[in-house]
């Protein structure tokens, strides 16, 4: 057991396993989160019921949150260790370097990922901790309460989204840029994680490539459509 942990946390491949495995769970999370958010287009009833359902999972809510944060930390820890090793591995740079087939996404995983990391902190402060970082104060008044069909008072997530994305224009722009980076990150990560875990196979590799590109496009369109629709006045 000690040896396994040592191999996992100290070797290059072990750190890649940690990165890929944590990335895999986080990938599933961002897809699920996007699908959940898109319910905003079904009106306040649907998204508020969804929010109340998640909040209602009292026993699961904190374990899930802690797991996700731990995975983000492991993902970032392994990425930074690997990146430091990578930079040290080529002390003298080429005068001219041709990336050949290396995609832009694959060459910007760490920088893009770090910006996404900062965005996650901002996003949690904004919509989970309800700190006033974007001009909309969600804790101040009763205006963010919604009465559902059973007469219960629940969080008005719909209104929070509208206010959150319409008070300050730069908040929406930041979200759109961040989800753009996220989809770029996922477009490479979704196929690289199978390679890192040794699960790549010629038989389904073309399907994995299409899947990664399709999910990345879905995430960008899905996530950015919400602030965009609010900015353009389609959601009120």
């Amino acid at each position: 057991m000690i040896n396994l942990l040592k191999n996992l946390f100290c070797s290059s491949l072990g750190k890649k396993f940690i990165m890929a495995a944590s990335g895999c769970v986080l990938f599933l999370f961002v897809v699920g989160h996007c699908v959940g958010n898109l319910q905003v287009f079904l009106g306040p009833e649907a998204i508020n019921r969804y929010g109340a359902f998640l909040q209602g999972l009292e026993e699961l809510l904190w374990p899930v949150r802690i797991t996700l944060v731990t995975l983000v930390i492991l993902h970032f820890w392994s990425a930074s260790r690997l990146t430091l090793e990578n930079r040290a591995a080529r002390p003298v740079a080429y005068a001219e370097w041709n990336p050949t087939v290396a995609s832009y996404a694959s060459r910007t995983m760490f920088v893009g990922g770090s910006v996404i990391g900062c965005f996650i902190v901002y996003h949690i402060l904004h919509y989970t901790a309800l700190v006033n970082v974007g001009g909309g104060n969600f804790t101040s008044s009763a205006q963010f309460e919604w009465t559902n069909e059973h007469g219960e008072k629940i969080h008005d997530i719909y209104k929070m989204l509208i206010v959150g994305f319409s008070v300050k224009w730069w908040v929406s722009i930041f979200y759109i840029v961040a989800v753009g980076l996220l989809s770029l990150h996922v477009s490479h990560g979704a196929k690289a994680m199978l390679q890192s875990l040794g699960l790549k196979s010629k038989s389904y590799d073309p399907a994995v490539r299409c899947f990664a590109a399709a999910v990345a496009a879905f995430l960008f369109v899905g996530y950015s459509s919400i602030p965009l629709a609010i900015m353009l006045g389609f959601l009120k």
Partner: protein
Amino acid sequence: MNLTLKVWRQKNASDTGRLVTYEAKNIIPDMSFLEMLDVVNEELMQKGEEPIAFDSDCREGICGTCSMVVNGTPHGGMKGTTVCQCHMRHFKDGDVIIIEPWRARAFPVLRDLVTDRSSFDRIIQAGGFVSVNTGGTPDGNAIPVPKTDADVAMDAAACIGCGACVAACKNASAMLFVAAKVSHLANLPQGRVERERRAIAMINQMDSEGFGNCTVTGSCEAVCPKEVSLDFIAQLNREYGKAILKNRMERKLAGGG
């Protein structure tokens, strides 16, 4: 044809080195890249200057000795070709060509374009032995090997250990080389006996040599003169993952005196 070369010149391992410009005149398009450098060196020696040092041996693309980065691409960017088999007809009259050595901490420059690639030898040594029974000569087909397995093993064994994968990788990672060596033996019954031990030992050695890590960019596969596939890196990851789960390194090798 006449060309302008910008060549990395470095006296020895401790020199900082710099790009020096040379004119390559009257180059015949049928010359190989190394023959073109030979012509430039002849001229330099006639002028009493130090010739450009570079590695070469077989000059027919099978030994893995020649090693230089041409205009940012190891071996010059012709698909499945070493730089000795890259011909001047692929260049145009008046081209400016930048020539640099492999750049990696694990491949220190000894002089000009010559690097010390003995880190690869140490990785091979760390791989250890393949068990072979003593006694009489075994029959050729005593151990059945499926044809497809033999073909896959051969694709991996095609690696000539030139180091272009390291040179092309943005992280200077040796994963394609190690993957080829580990997969070549792991795909054959003769090599399977020590496969776990071998995977762990070679990865440990690779890490301690100071190579970078794999980001799955695919540059290594693109420049490999033997077109060793990225799929072998997936196999290496799989071999290593299984090996650390089985934890075979815990038990020291006993006996042998």
